[in-house]
């Protein structure tokens, strides 16, 4: 059973996690854990949350997946790791489109902050488009969208640089009449 943590004055935001809550910091290296805890604790509380009501059953919905794993189709320009290596506070702010028939044979991943060999062995670990195709064939989801998307999750301190890509992805989803955007950050 879920809840709205914004309406819960006792919410600890995972620091520490309460009974029944996931520990959001468990699988983070110590320095990153400390940094993110401080960011969550000291950052401005979100005051405007976008919301679109559910309009169709899942079995009639078109779904698209968004990843932050730095994915590109083979043949497309990969995300820029060389600049990030030279400028460690910089992340590639561009975006890529991936097709609905994507698989481990047709994808590349470039990301300095996660171990990419897991997803390159089995996309469903974090980019479940192959699994969604199965669910489509079974009638569980209505349709897997023609396009799916990736950005680079690491962006350094200024996230505003990512806004043009976010707008472009949203516009592309609207053009393809996507009903559900499933975001799986890495």
């Amino acid at each position, binding site marked *: 059973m*879920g809840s709205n943590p914004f309406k819960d004055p006792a919410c600890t935001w995972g620091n520490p996690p309460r009974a029944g809550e996931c520990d959001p910091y468990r699988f983070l290296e110590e*320095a990153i854990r400390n940094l993110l805890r401080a960011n969550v604790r000291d950052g401005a509380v*979100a005051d405007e949350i976008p919301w679109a009501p559910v309009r169709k059953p899942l079995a009639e919905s078109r779904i698209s997946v968004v990843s932050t794993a730095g994915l590109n189709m083979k043949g497309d320009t990969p995300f820029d790791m060389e600049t990030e290596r030279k400028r460690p506070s910089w992340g590639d702010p561009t975006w890529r489109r991936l097709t609905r028939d994507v698989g481990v044979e047709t994808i590349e991943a470039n990301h300095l902050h996660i171990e990419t060999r*897991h997803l390159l062995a089995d996309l469903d670990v974090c980019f479940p488009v192959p699994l969604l195709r*199965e669910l489509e064939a079974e009638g569980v989801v209505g349709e897997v969208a023609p396009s799916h998307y990736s950005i680079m999750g690491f962006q350094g301190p200024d996230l505003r640089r990512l806004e043009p890509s976010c707008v472009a992805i949203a516009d592309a989803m609207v053009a393809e009449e996507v009903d*559900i955007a*499933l975001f799986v950050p890495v």
Partner: protein
Amino acid sequence: MVLNSIWAFQRISGQPRVAAIEFPMGRALGAVGEAKLHREILLAALEVFETAEEPGWVEHLPHRWQHDDDRTWLPDPPPPYLLIIREKWREMVERSRKRAGA
């Protein structure tokens, strides 16, 4: 709809619907080859999409990571930014110790 390990970001990012999962980044649906688990988690996340009652909703999925001896969620070599963060944290701790000792 977000399937997210670091669900606490919700406080500052304000995502409409979150399925929280206590799995390593990069493997939010499970380890390589765990097809049954991938399916369970994906269906659970999609159910959160359908049942979330209001903006900001968070539901904590009950699935537990079964590979505690697997440390491959830490990339090797570490990213350059991590080295900067580690040094900054070390400096902060050192300053705090000096202030405490002063």
